[in-house]
């Protein structure tokens, strides 16, 4: 696995802070890729914090709630770097913080059969990045979950949002695990953390000693990238290498990001929707940086402005440096799956021909031969791409990171997948 220099130290110890809210928010109405929620408010409407503003019509989408109180300024579409157009609801913050009346809170725990509905109602999606609707994931595991893996492996460089959350929201994390597992009923409940976060064991110890959390265990994973990806985590915990065609949840291994589980606790105990998340602001150009509890929809420019970052001379990345996406429009919002905003030095890259050094083959966690994707793409040969199993690629970027010739492997992988899809249709 790929190893990096320690870039997490900059933001690791700072805890979770809050920042002044943005005057204008751009709430994305997307969940898992290509699936959108339908707005239920119109331009000019006044909305209250936590009020439902867009409804999920298909199971791969998720409800969206107002992160602040204010007025709907309109709905527009923004174009993602990959070309998909995402509807965004613009909200003018009135800074009153007026909350919608919350639904009745359960006496004690909600009944297990209500849990998936409650999570769907709160608009929960996976906070690890893929934004897969949590209710759908837990339903697909049904009553067959053998392991509930709470994923605290944050393998992307710079990011410490999950670490800060595990350290500071530990009570909510454990309550979330317990409540979700009343539905999943997994025998093995495992919290996985990386080797460099061993200090969390002491934080978890008082909770693990409690009777209601009896049987939960913490597993330390070896460091490396992409250790936090679902299949790598399942292998580390269960010893099973899940083929790309198999879905971990369908096999009984439910993997949830720690942030998702904390959000689940709030949804189940207080019936609060997901309207904030913790974001790491870091990178060489971000000054001190830190971890912030930020309303969903906060524009990146607002957060960077508070850090005194100039847009020139830097590359701004939403997410991690390995799998995140570039930000050119400063109104690009923080979404439910965005773990970080990075301000990286803008370095010129010299792309050369692949020289066949096989560094990418060594780096690939799925044991693929990425150099063949560069070749197959150049030759527009979908047969070659399929023979060398492009379908198994998880697009983690470890190959391109390792490439001494800076071959645009990720571009060829994405274009290659499109080539195969085009051939099929």
């Amino acid at each position, binding site marked *: 696995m790929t190893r*990096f220099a320690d870039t997490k130290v900059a933001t690791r110890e700072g805890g979770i802070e809050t920042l002044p809210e943005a005057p204008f928010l751009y709430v994305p109405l997307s969940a898992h890729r290509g699936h959108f929620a339908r707005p239920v408010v119109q331009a000019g409407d006044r909305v209250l914090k936590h009020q439902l503003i867009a409804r999920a019509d298909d199971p791969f989408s998720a409800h969206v709630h107002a992160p602040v109180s204010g007025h709907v300024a309109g709905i527009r579409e923004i174009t993602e770097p990959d070309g998909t157009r995402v509807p965004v609801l613009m909200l003018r913050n009135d800074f009153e913080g007026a909350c919608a009346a919350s639904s009745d809170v359960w006496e004690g725990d909600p009944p297990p059969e209500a849990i998936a509905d409650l999570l769907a109602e709160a608009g929960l999606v996976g906070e690890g990045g893929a934004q897969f609707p949590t209710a759908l994931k837990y339903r697909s595991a049904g009553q067959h979950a053998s392991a509930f893996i709470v994923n605290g492996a944050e393998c992307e460089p710079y990011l410490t949002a999950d670490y800060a959350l595990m350290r500071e929201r530990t009570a909510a994390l454990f309550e979330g695990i317990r409540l979700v597992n009343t539905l999943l009923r997994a025998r093995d409940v495992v919290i996985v953390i990386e080797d460099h976060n061993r200090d969390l064991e002491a934080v978890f110890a008082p909770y693990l000693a409690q009777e209601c959390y009896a049987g939960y265990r913490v597993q330390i994973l070896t460091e490396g990238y992409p250790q936090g990806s679902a299949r790598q985590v399942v292998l580390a915990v269960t010893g099973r290498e899940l083929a790309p065609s198999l879905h971990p949840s369908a096999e009984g291994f439910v993997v949830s990001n720690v942030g998702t589980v904390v959000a689940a606790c709030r949804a189940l105990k207080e019936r609060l929707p997901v309207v904030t998340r913790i974001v790491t602001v870091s990178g060489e150009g971000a000054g001190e940086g830190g971890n912030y509890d930020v309303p969903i929809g906060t524009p990146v420019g607002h957060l960077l402005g508070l850090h005194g970052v100039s847009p020139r001379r830097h590359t701004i*990345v939403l997410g991690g440096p*390995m799998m995140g996406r570039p930000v050119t429009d400063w109104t690009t919002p923080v979404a439910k799956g965005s773990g970080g905003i*990075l301000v990286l030095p803008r370095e*010129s890259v010299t792309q050369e021909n*692949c020289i066949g050094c*096989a560094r990418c083959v060594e780096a690939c966690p799925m044991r693929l031969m990425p150099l063949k994707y560069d070749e197959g793409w*150049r030759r527009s040969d979908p047969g070659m791409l399929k023979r060398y199993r492009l379908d198994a690629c998880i697009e983690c970027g470890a190959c391109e*990171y390792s490439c001494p010739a800076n071959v645009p492997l990720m571009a060829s992988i994405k274009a290659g997948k499109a080539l195969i899809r085009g051939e099929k249709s």
Partner: protein
Amino acid sequence: MKRFGFSTTAPFIRRTDSVSSIMADVLFALLPCCVMAWVAFGSRPVLVILVSCGSAVLAEFLFTRLYAGKTDAVADGSSLVTGTLLACTLAPFTPLYAAAFGGAMAVLFGKLLYGGLGRNRFNPALVGREFMTAFFPAVMASGAIWYDRNAVNFSSLDVLPDAFLNTLVFNGGGAIGEYSVLFLVLGGIYLLLRKRIGWHIPLALTATFTLLFLAVSNGGYQFSLAGVLLGAIYMATDMPTSATTRAGQLYYGAMIGAVAVLCIALGVRHAYMSYAILLLNGFAVPVNWVFRTRVWGETLNLPSRLAQAVALTAAIAGAALGVIWLHAQGWIAYLVLFYIAWSVGHFLYRQYKPDAVAV
């Protein structure tokens, strides 16, 4: 070919490494051997190295300037490596015009006509060498280019207490790169530590070569230890033309060793390493396929892979016998002519129908 720009897609961080630093490491590893060439015969073999390098760099510069409008193509240093490696296989008193011809042909037909560094199928330095043999057969076959009594700088070095060990440090016979087994190996260890080569190809090659040589030799055959090491460490490990996966590299190295011994046993006296490496270069693509990685979650179909490996081995053996037969007939030059035609055809086809993606 190079293209400059800023990252616009993930990943946004990269390991600090470059093609030019790989090439610099290879040159650094070969430097002591070049010094030993001076120790053996003074400035003449050094001049061969310089002419071969200069010609390779000039050819690359002119070609890329004319056909791609580039002026920085030589900056990666790969033509210097090609020139040096070619010179390492040449005799110390090779005529300079022949060395210049070889250097230019090595980069032109070994690399540039296929689209530059990384796109080539055959080791450029060895391609250059075969061109020289084909176009200057009398010069390359003459004994005079191998030794000149008046030029001898040191006939032996007495640095170690043992005579045999001294010959490993320095032995004043053979091609320019072959005077010091010690420095060839030390250079290889340096490249290994810098992760510029893997141990798989050199080890499999030398082990197979040794075992098979001992098995077939009854004292009648000869080989050059330094020549085999030069090939195993510096030529067979050439990244673009060798196998990529570890299993593939083990097989690839072993097959080079086996073909080299086959060549020796069937009467190829000097060019056995060159033939063996170039032949396996031609089989690198199927080797990569047969010895491809076992993808995550996939179960290895061992009988099917073994059957493929047996078929591949049979094909390589057949091709090796074909090359040895051509060599015995004195027809290798025709193979070179065919290669020229094929390379030019490939180049023209690429000009007519460029890669789907402009690089």
